[in-house]
């Protein structure tokens, strides 16, 4: 123990001597932990919200009875089941929406709700049970929901736990009144039924659905969370580059001390144990800092993520981060694992280090040409794997594996490419010859940092190209799709019908917007009913179609489906859609930003299939010059609130806002990753600055000023950053292709054309130069100001 303690003290004295290096190690670990754990915290919080939503009213435990066509359950069916003795409980579910906000309403019958439904506690002393059951009723909501944007004219609210975000639980009679629906949406089935009754499926024609183990939202958002996880992993990896560089340097500088300790009688295992203990302690402290940073990052990004999930998937999470000790402990374990992984090489070298070998201070920086060739070969193998996965891979995991193989392969072949590029650069004189030769010699030492920079730059180019392509396509698509001049939202279907009738003669056309939720292929989907109008023929570009699709649609015996549904279910024009007894598909339309399947049928067919669904929104076609006048009339003459009548530009602005919100988190992670890569470069340059004095001292001695040497160091870093950017550009574009052609198709169900954005590259190029310049500035300034005595000391030590 005494020996171990002495060994730990002796080895860790290195850090007291070089606090900057310790700071780099801690910063690397803390950043890696922060970015990884921040992303995990966001994912955990969102998934927790989905689980809470899934568990509400026992959906995750209780079976339900519902109609196969998705319509509400006739009250008579419910009463018949109760009369027969079955323990079932009605639920009315729907959404209240107006210009002020929206709220999901869940109406329950507390007297018959099964115990397993675990609804909010209504039996506590301070709960006003009478208000819950009597008019105007009481809505139970969480505190966050109560403080959010809610529809107007709601009954009183009461704060309760165990209610999903953006939803309210109320008595079934209140829900029926609010939603204008008398029949239950579905019936909850108690897990234990009275003895002697036949199976409930024999007593009714309703369909029995098993409890949801993974709800739809969780399934829908998986790709978003996988995306975040991939980014978190990339940031973690880039952070570990810093850790690896710092540990590698510390190992190199302590090589002699380790050898001395061993020569003085410290067994190898004690040295390894001492190094491990020391690293575990540093990782613990850095991990705690990283967890705090990660929590702050997650808390800062959480509102954006909540907006993204709401906008893109309609998933409600509260946008507030809770502190979860399990998350903190797992983040700490990840820090230890990461530190261990980064230290493996140094530990193996310690194990293999012969006791008697002379100290080679630059051995670490001098990876052999053989190692570089091996890396290049591994890179080729990874490129082949990426190609194979791109051509033959199936599913989102294969797409992400393809991305990983592409990125790791690119990073591995960087040293070989860079060495080759430096060999073909022309030289003008002996000095420039020395600069190039010296730069080539530095490549192995800097390679890890340059790889980190390459990864960050490629990710940046790839993601920005994907987002840019998506945005351009999306805007073009919006311009086409949002063809109507005005959009009106009425308070209810009756008002909508009244308004449509009132203005019919003053406008060119009225296009009702009506939809119903329906499960297609066992996934949530929406069905829209439209009238036959030239607007649709002109504004809905079809990706695939039969002949005369719009004419066929107008007959009521055909359907159009969106690209997502077509890709997911491998449908094409001519196939039969299982809707309204089976409708042939006559066309496929693009539908960016929608995670769900969607189908369009004629309004007549829609009304037959979904008699309960009535339009409360409609679009108006009118001469654009007359649009403001009709909007004013709707507001003033019919008393519509300002938000109920929106023009094309407002809808477009809202859609673009939702789009930009969606990629805000990705953009933030992108910048953070680039920052981490900059720090990795700084760590490596600081490392080499210390090791390189013996190389620089002779050049100084033969007549090169310290200022010139410092300038060369700065220019060299900039030059290497430029070369890295040049290599990162094609990698980034390949990455963008994988994201657009593979990941997007798998994750969202749509494919986008790739577009190039050279102005984004120029901005990134400037950022890369800035990062490299800032990283190199410190070491260069130190070199410019180094006392000559320190350089002459090099000669004294070189015996």
């Amino acid at each position, binding site marked *: 123990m005494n020996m171990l303690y002495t060994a730990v003290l002796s080895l860790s004295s290195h850090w007291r001597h070089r606090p900057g290096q310790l700071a780099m190690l801690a910063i690397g670990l803390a950043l890696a932990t922060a970015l990884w754990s921040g992303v995990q915290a966001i994912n955990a919080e969102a998934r927790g919200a989905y689980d809470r939503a899934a568990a509400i009213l026992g959906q995750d435990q209780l079976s339900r009875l519902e109609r196969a066509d998705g319509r509400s359950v006739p009250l008579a069916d419910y009463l018949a089941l109760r009369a027969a003795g079955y323990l079932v409980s009605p639920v009315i579910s729907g959404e209240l929406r107006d210009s002020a906000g929206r709220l999901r309403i869940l109406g329950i019958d507390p007297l018959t709700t099964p115990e397993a439904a675990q609804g909010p506690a209504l039996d506590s002393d301070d709960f006003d049970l009478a208000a819950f059951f009597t008019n105007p009723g009481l809505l139970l909501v969480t505190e966050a929901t109560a403080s959010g944007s809610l529809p107007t004219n709601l009954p009183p609210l009461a704060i309760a736990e165990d209610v999903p975000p953006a939803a309210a639980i109320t008595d079934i009679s209140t829900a029926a009144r609010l939603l204008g629906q008398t029949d239950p949406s579905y019936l909850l089935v108690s897990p234990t039924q009275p003895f002697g009754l036949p199976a409930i499926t024999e007593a009714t024609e309703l369909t029995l659905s098993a409890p949801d183990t993974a709800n739809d939202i969780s399934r829908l958002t998986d790709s978003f969370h996988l995306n975040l996880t991939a980014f978190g992993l990339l940031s973690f990896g880039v952070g570990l580059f810093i850790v690896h560089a710092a540990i590698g340097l510390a190992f190199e500088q302590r090589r002699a001390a380790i050898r001395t300790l061993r020569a003085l*009688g410290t067994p190898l295992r004690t040295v390894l144990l001492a190094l491990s203990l020391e690293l575990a302690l540093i990782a613990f402290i850095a991990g705690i800092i990283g967890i705090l940073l990660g929590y702050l990052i997650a808390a800062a990004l959480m509102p954006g993520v909540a907006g993204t999930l709401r906008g893109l998937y309609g998933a409600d999470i509260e946008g507030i981060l809770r502190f979860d000790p399990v998350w903190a402990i797992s983040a700490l374990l990840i820090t230890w694992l990461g530190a261990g992984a980064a230290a493996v090489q140094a530990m193996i070298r310690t194990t293999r280090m012969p006791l008697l070998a002379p100290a080679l201070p630059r051995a670490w920086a001098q990876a052999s040409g053989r190692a570089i060739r091996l890396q290049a070969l591994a890179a080729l193998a990874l490129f082949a794997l990426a190609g194979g996965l791109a051509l033959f891979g199936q599913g989102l995991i294969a797409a992400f594996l393809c991305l990983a193989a592409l990125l790791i392969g690119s990073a591995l072949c960087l040293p070989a490419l860079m060495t080759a590029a430096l060999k073909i650069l022309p030289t003008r004189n002996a000095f420039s010859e020395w600069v190039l030769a010296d730069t080539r010699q530095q490549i192995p030492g800097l390679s890890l940092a340059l790889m980190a920079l390459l990864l960050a730059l490629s990710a940046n180019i790839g993601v920005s190209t994907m987002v840019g392509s998506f945005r351009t396509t999306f805007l073009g698509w919006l311009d086409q799709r949002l063809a109507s001049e005005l959009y009106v939202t009425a308070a209810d279907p009756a008002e909508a019908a009244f308004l449509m009738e009132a203005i019919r003669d003053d406008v060119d056309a009225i296009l009702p917007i009506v939809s119903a939720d329906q499960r297609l292929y066992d996934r949530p989907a929406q069905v829209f009913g439209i009238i036959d109008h030239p607007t649709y023929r002109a504004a809905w570009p079809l990706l695939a179609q039969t002949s005369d699709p719009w004419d066929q649609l107008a007959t009521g015996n055909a359907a159009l489906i969106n690209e997502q549904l077509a890709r997911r279910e491998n449908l094409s024009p001519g196939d039969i859609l299982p809707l309204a007894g089976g409708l042939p598909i006559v066309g496929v339309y693009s539908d960016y930003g929608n995670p769900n399947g969607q189908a369009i049928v004629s309004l007549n067919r829609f009304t037959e299939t979904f008699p309960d669904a009535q339009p409360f929104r409609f679009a108006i076609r009118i001469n654009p010059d007359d649009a403001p006048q009709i909007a004013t009339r709707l507001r003033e003459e019919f008393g519509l609130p300002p938000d109920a009548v929106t023009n094309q530009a407002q809808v477009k602005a809202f859609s673009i806002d939702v789009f930009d919100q969606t990629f805000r988190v990705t953009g933030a992670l992108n910048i953070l990753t680039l920052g981490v890569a900059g720090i990795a470069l700084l760590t490596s340059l600081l490392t080499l600055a210390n090791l390189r004095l013996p190389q620089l001292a002779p050049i100084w001695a033969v007549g090169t000023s310290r200022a010139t040497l410092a300038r060369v160091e700065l220019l060299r870093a900039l030059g290497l950053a430029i070369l890295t950017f040049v290599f990162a550009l094609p990698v980034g574009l390949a990455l963008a292709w994988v994201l657009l052609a593979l990941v997007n198709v798998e994750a969202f169900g749509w494919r986008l054309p790739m577009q190039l954005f050279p102005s984004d590259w120029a901005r990134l190029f400037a950022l890369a130069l800035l990062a490299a310049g800032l990283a190199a500035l410190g070491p260069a300034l130190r070199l410019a100001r180094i006392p000559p005595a320190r350089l002459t000391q090099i000669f004294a030590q070189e015996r």
Partner: protein
Amino acid sequence: MLVANRPIAAKSNGMTNTLLDIRDIHKSYGDVAVLSGVSIGMEPRQTLALTGESGSGKSTLLHLAGGLDQPESGQVLLQGRDIGTMDDAARAKARRDHVGLIFQQFNLVPSLSVAANIALQARLAGRHDADFCAELADRLGLADLTNRFPEQLSGGQQQRVAIARALAPRPALILADEPTGNLDEDTGDAVLSLLLDLVSDTGAGLLMVTHSPRLAARLSHRIHLSRGVLEGA
């Protein structure tokens, strides 16, 4: 003042009368035979100079004597125990407990102060005696330098720290590999005088590798290696 004659109490480590018994050892690196059938015996308190030209195998012999390396054949008995066949941990323990090493390159731990460097091996061996370390520092003229770090010392001062470190755990055997090789003649002479005085006071044996016949002559015995073979004793 570098030389002091105050006696230092020796600690008995002896298990047998023979301190070091090297018997017919062979060692080669690849195809090159470095040592061929070398045998040496050393009694406690004996000082032995090992001379020879560059590449004759002097340092290799010293390393084998200290358990830093293992012979291909033959025995290295340190106080009667064959350290040549021990595993790494056992050889490390033997070094820690019985051997003090002094290198030409000093091999101090740069991040430890002079005081911590002097105490290092004694602490590792669990035999740290703060008074004894202070006494060694005092006798070696390092008393005012104990808070400094190795890079702040001259070559002669660093070698004196290395000598103090080797003596601090009171080892039975001191192995010195050209301890004055990096020092000028005067400083080298002074350092050697100190080393010999302290070795004599602590009762340790000394096996010292040197190129210099002049320095070798100051030790009680001398042997010469030529191409891996012992020429005389």
